């Protein structure tokens, strides 16, 4: 590393000249590139190339023995229109949208209230949001399996209240519950970051200018916190759409989602071209939403 940080190399000049300056500039650029190169190459080999392979595979042919990398076609993409596949896509999107909305509904007032607190309280509240954020996702989903399982706390509680043995496990509701539980911190954190940045005097000014509480939320707070809303929504929507662990633990046979469906193509159906095409769709959704976000002036996720 010593070498990379030592720019005083072989440029010999006494009096400054444009050539010297350009050489220094170039040397600095080269040094920057040199430092970025290891990570750059790593991501090229283990991210970009795999990405290209997925795209290539999605146009390949499936044979009885596996995948034939010839006879290129768009059959895999045509199959996206099949009723079965359409159902899965539709259900996944619906579930992801519902999850995102619930997260938004819980997280927005949470983040807003948090930003009205003193700095000390705020930091404490933040810590207690960070803990689930850092906690193993699998374990957190599993906890719901225990709660919702037959004879578990949930069924006992619902019997005690007199709702009978309301069964949630292996339903869409359980999946949504698991997804919200898993991704809520991803919504709270960007929302909080966005709302906390807002100058409180703006809200006061709007109230001074005759806005009602709701109007000042609608016309001042919401627009100003929009980057947080969008960032949080992307961070919840995209992984929900591609969720695999949650439906596997909490969902049932009838709740196949896009993520699980993709996994099936690879681990059991061995229909790699179709699986690749589905992955590509998921990726396209992710890329589009992110690009739209950055175009609209969002800075970081």
């Amino acid at each position, binding site marked *: 590393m010593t070498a990379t940080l030592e720019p*005083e190399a072989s440029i010999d*000049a006494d*009096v*400054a*000249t*444009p050539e*010297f*300056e350009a050489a*220094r500039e170039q040397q600095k650029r080269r040094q920057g590139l040199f430092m970025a190169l290891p990570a750059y190459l790593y991501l090229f080999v283990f991210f970009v190339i795999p990405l290209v392979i997925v795209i290539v595979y999605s146009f390949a042919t499936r044979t009885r023995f596996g995948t034939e990398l010839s006879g290129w076609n768009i059959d895999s993409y045509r199959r996206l229109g099949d009723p079965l596949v359409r159902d899965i896509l539709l259900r996944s999107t619906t579930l992801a949208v519902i999850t995102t909305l619930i997260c938004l509904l819980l997280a927005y007032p949470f983040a807003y209230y948090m930003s009205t607190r003193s700095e000390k309280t705020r930091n404490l509240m933040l810590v207690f949001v960070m803990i689930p954020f850092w906690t193993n996702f699998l374990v957190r989903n599993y906890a719901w399996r225990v709660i919702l399982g037959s004879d578990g706390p949930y069924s006992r509680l619902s019997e005690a209240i007199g709702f009978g043995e309301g069964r949630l496990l292996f339903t869409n509701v359980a999946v949504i519950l698991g997804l919200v539980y898993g991704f809520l911190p991803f919504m709270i954190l960007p929302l909080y970051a966005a709302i906390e940045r807002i100058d409180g005097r703006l809200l006061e000014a709007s109230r001074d200018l005759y806005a009602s509480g709701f109007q000042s939320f609608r016309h001042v707070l919401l627009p100003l916190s929009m980057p947080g809303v969008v960032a949080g929504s992307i961070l919840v929507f995209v992984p929900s759409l591609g969720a695999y662990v949650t439906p596997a633990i909490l969902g049932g046979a009838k709740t196949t989602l896009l993520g699980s469906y993709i996994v099936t193509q690879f681990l059991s159906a061995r229909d790699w071209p179709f699986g690749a095409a589905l992955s590509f769709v998921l990726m396209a959704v992710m890329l589009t939403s992110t690009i739209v976000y950055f175009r609209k002036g969002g800075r970081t996720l």
Partner: protein
Amino acid sequence: MTAAVDIKGVTKRFDDVYAVDDIDLSIADGEFFAMLGPSGCGKTTTLRMIAGLEFPTMGSLKIFGEEVGTLPPNKRPVNTVFQNYALFPHMSVLDNVSFGLRMNKVDKTTAAKKAHELIELVQLSGMEKRRPSQLSGGQQQRVALARALVNEPKVLLLDEPLGALDLKLRQEMQGELKSLQRELGVSFVFVTHDQEEALTMADRIAVMHNGKLLQVGTPEDIYERPANRFVADFIGQTNLLDAVVEDDDMIILENGTRLMAPNPLPPGTKVAMSLRPEAVDIGPRGTVPAEHQKTSLEGVVESMTYLGHALDYTVKIGWIDLEVRADAVHAEQRFQPGDEVAVWWDRTSDWVVAD
């Protein structure tokens, strides 16, 4: 005698922008030198080039006769007091001050001894173990000074050293900096956008604008004999009256009024006459003293602002407003808006600048 800093034909270009455009500048040993100008004028870039933090696009840059234009900062015998100080937040005051010595491989005991001396010089004894965050702004500024001076630089560079302090502390530090500089006898080159600071502290001032060096001179030169319209306008408050040169002695204002204003410019040159508000006297019409007949104008008072020690009048002279500052205590008469008045001045206090 060899100049402490000698800059010849130095230009710095960032892409297509000339941050510094072909300047020549010579700073003497032991001089307190100010570089003054609005933000973006190139003064900081010039300072950074002397420090080695930027390399000139071209030109020669010598420190005590040695060409340093292409040397990195750690090979130059100069040190910098940075804007906002740039103290290392993770080091104690002592470690901050001895940093340069340690990097120069001075042995530990000597380094500590010298650092303590400097800490004493800037009156921070007893604070060696503190972190910068535990110091006040003024104390941080002293640490920054000690940290630079401990290396015995041949030239000390200061980038807006007082900018972060409040007014009172700033005035106090101005005096201290000045006496410190006299005591050490080292050249101080400091950058500021505050013209008052430059006028009170510097032996000489360089005024920069748009990358160009407009004027170098003593505070008196700069204030009383500005080289051009920009300098006249930037330093202090002034009235600028557009005119054309008639001959060595006279100029003609836009409305045809002839005024006495000695100047070396050829007849017909477009000029501006700079007239400081405090150099102008005001009185009722017809009371202009005889010797000021050719350096007077007539007008109507438009407004008056009371400043306590002074009265500021805006006097409308036909096509232009003239600012006049009268002494509140000695004024024989006070005027109200609408009063018809005459203004006059000494023939030595107007100054003609070429456009």
